[in-house]
């Protein structure tokens, strides 16, 4: 892993995190207005793997996959694009967690699982290039420059494999992008996404609390505490 949480004893951690946790209202943070991260803070991150065009695509895509609205924070403001970029620069992104020896049989039945030669970072590179090419042919603009509704249409077409991309199965690329987007949205904030535990507050997941012995005897009662992160942040 490229980042490790600081080592800390459990007791210190709990004391630290409980001390200032406010008792929240019904269902965690559902009533709290979603936080907004300034564009300046977002731009402070310089991508390690994606080039400028790819970075624009990833930001524009995650912004539509989980958009910001009154329900809760969107993927872009929670740092999901940063999360994906950091994952690309990790063992996972380099395909080191997968069996990647040939021969490859990309047309094997879908039920037999992923059979492409692309590592995750290669799939992004090839997929983004092909989508950009398709968008310029169809819409005379790059993906990031399209209106939000048009971006949604393109993503739907990718999802259902209804457009044919050059050299990349559209649905496979979309599946990878959506999976990583949800990972970045819900993973611990130390990986760069889920800033300020925004998604956890929205759904009512208490994150790394991991201690509910007192609550098993109170079935059906709403759990009142907000989330904590592995590094001890609380919300």
């Amino acid at each position, binding site marked *: *892993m490229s980042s*490790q*949480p600081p*080592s*800390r004893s*459990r007791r210190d*951690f709990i004391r630290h995190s409980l001390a200032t946790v406010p008792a929240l209202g019904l*269902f*965690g943070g*559902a009533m709290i207005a979603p936080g907004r991260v300034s564009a300046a803070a977002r731009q402070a991150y310089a991508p390690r793997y994606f080039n400028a065009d790819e970075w624009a695509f990833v930001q524009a895509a995650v912004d*539509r*996959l*989980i*958009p910001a609205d009154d*329900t*809760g924070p969107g993927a872009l403001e929670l740092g999901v694009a940063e999360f994906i970029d950091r994952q690309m620069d990790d063992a*996972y992104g380099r*395909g080191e*967690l*997968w*069996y*990647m*020896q040939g*021969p490859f049989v990309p047309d*094997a039945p*879908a*039920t*037999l*699982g*992923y*059979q492409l030669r692309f590592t995750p970072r290669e799939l992004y590179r090839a997929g983004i290039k092909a989508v950009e090419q398709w968008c310029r042919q169809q819409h005379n603009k790059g993906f990031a420059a399209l209106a939000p509704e048009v971006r*949604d249409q393109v*993503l739907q077409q990718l*999802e259902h494999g209804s457009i044919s991309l050059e050299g990349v199965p559209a649905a496979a690329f979309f599946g990878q992008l*959506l999976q990583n*987007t949800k990972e970045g949205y*819900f*993973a*611990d904030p130390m990986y760069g996404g889920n800033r300020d535990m925004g*998604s956890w507050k*929205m*759904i*009512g*997941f208490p*994150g*790394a*609390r*991991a*201690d*509910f*012995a007192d*609550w*098993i*005897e109170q*079935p*059906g009662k*709403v*759990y009142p505490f907000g989330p904590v992160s*592995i590094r*001890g942040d609380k919300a």
Partner: protein
Amino acid sequence: MKRMKPVDAVIVGFGWTGAMMGLELAEAGLEVLALERGDYRDTSPDFSYPQIADELAYGIRGKLFQPLARETVTIRHAVNETAVPYRQYGSFLLGNNVGGAGTHWNGQHYRPSPEDLELHTHITQRYGAKFMPADMQIQDYGLSYDELEPFLEKFEYVCGTSGRAGNLGGQVQIGGNPFEGPRQHEYPNPPVADTYGAKLFADAARAVGFHPFPQPSSNASRPYTNPYGVRLGPCNLCGYCERFGCFMYSKASPQTTILPVLMRKPNFALRTNSHVLKVNLDSTGKRATGVTYVDAQGQQVEQPAELVIVAAFQMHNVRLLLLSGIGKPYDPASGSGVIGRNYAYQMMSGISVFFDKDVAINPFIAAGSGGTEIVDDFNSDHFDHGPHGFVGGGYIFGGQTGGRPIQQLMVPPGTPAWGAKWKQAARDSYLHTATVGTHGSVMAYRDRYLDLDPTYKDAFGQPLLRITFDWHDNEYKMTRFLSDRAQQIVDQMKPRQSSLTIRQPGDHYDIRQYQTTHTTGGVITGADPATSALNRYLQSWDVPNVFVTGASAFPQNIGYNPTGLIGGLTYWAAKAIRENYLKNPGPLVQA
């Protein structure tokens, strides 16, 4: 090649059964060496809080699993197809490192039903031989429940299993599983209290006339000291169980039950980063002389031993026997041969149960197995199969193992997979969704088996194991029958909405979806060397100083989680080795 000092016994793989055998043989006074291909792992520091509460690292990227980049398996649906590699985790999760899958299981700790061990005989007697399809290849284990009972109990007491007996010495007990085989003693610990989802399930199951009981769970419900003097702590329902190590010393694993004693034995040694390539045989092919392994720096090492215990995960056991030339490989065309025979799996279904916002399920308050309720009315032969036309069954469960949002967040059917509508459904459903599921058996068939892949290799250049598997009609019928009864319970729970995921006729085995890690068979027990690789003491018919532990010994799969039976069989075999084999090394059963 480097040659090491001979030992009395060498154990291949240091998970559950390697640890059990290690202590049993060390107690018997043998010089014992265990070889583990992974690293040393212990509760502290490897599973400690808070870094273990990391869904991405453990639950999604699989930090505790076998690195597939180095070794995987290949899979195809039928004998005439070309298998392709299992490149990413999906259907099952292979273990790695000390403790193996015993560190990242959930702790569901079941016994088989008595008839599960004599299934062929039982089905033939009750329903007639024609009740089984012609290509179904089910067999008896060659030992009975009554013989195995003390060893099933021994493993429960080592693990500190939490549960409530349903049958003590033939007397049915209120609140336990009324369908279970008789047990001599109560569980060592009382059940973990029900989560809210489990409580709603149990009330509904009772209302429709079924017999719910708390799931037997090796998540300790209270502080417990096991017979070895090792102490477990009470489970705190942290919600990070399966796929994670336990930071509370609550989930039974080799680390929390056996290793603190075993690692101090002067006549026991463990070598990690030692990947066994094969079991070596003498010129007759009838006697093992030890094993050859690759050490951390890549050097091949010969380890001589008088006794070889093959104690890796089910698939690895089958592969090692094939690579070593022990036993005749199974041939699906003729139905002859034994190694790779009767590979089986399990058939699952699931129902997401969506409640309104006034019902707080709090899915993150969860143990891996404690706090879940079970209906066992339709498992094994607990009911008359005659009108239903299938063999086997399973249990229905209600409760949750966690609310980790990347993997476990559910949205109602019809919700888009992304976008504003998905987000709203995720927010509105998360705290109010319970889980009900079914966990069913899979029988053995002539065309479902394991062998060596002709094309793909591991990091050491050895062929991968090839799985040939797909569903049969018997299992589609079983899962429909079980799921209909699960739906009956769910309807009684009166949710706002529910959504069933079921495998239907025509659906192929889909390796992208996690189902269970309960793969079985390939080196099975039995009474006849023509149809089994091992005798009733898990001893190779062909090479009597080789014993093979684990679910590879199951002749077909059961409707329960396998670990309880695996532990019972291992202690049963260990006793036979200690009391009979060591006095007179040779076959414990004459072929």
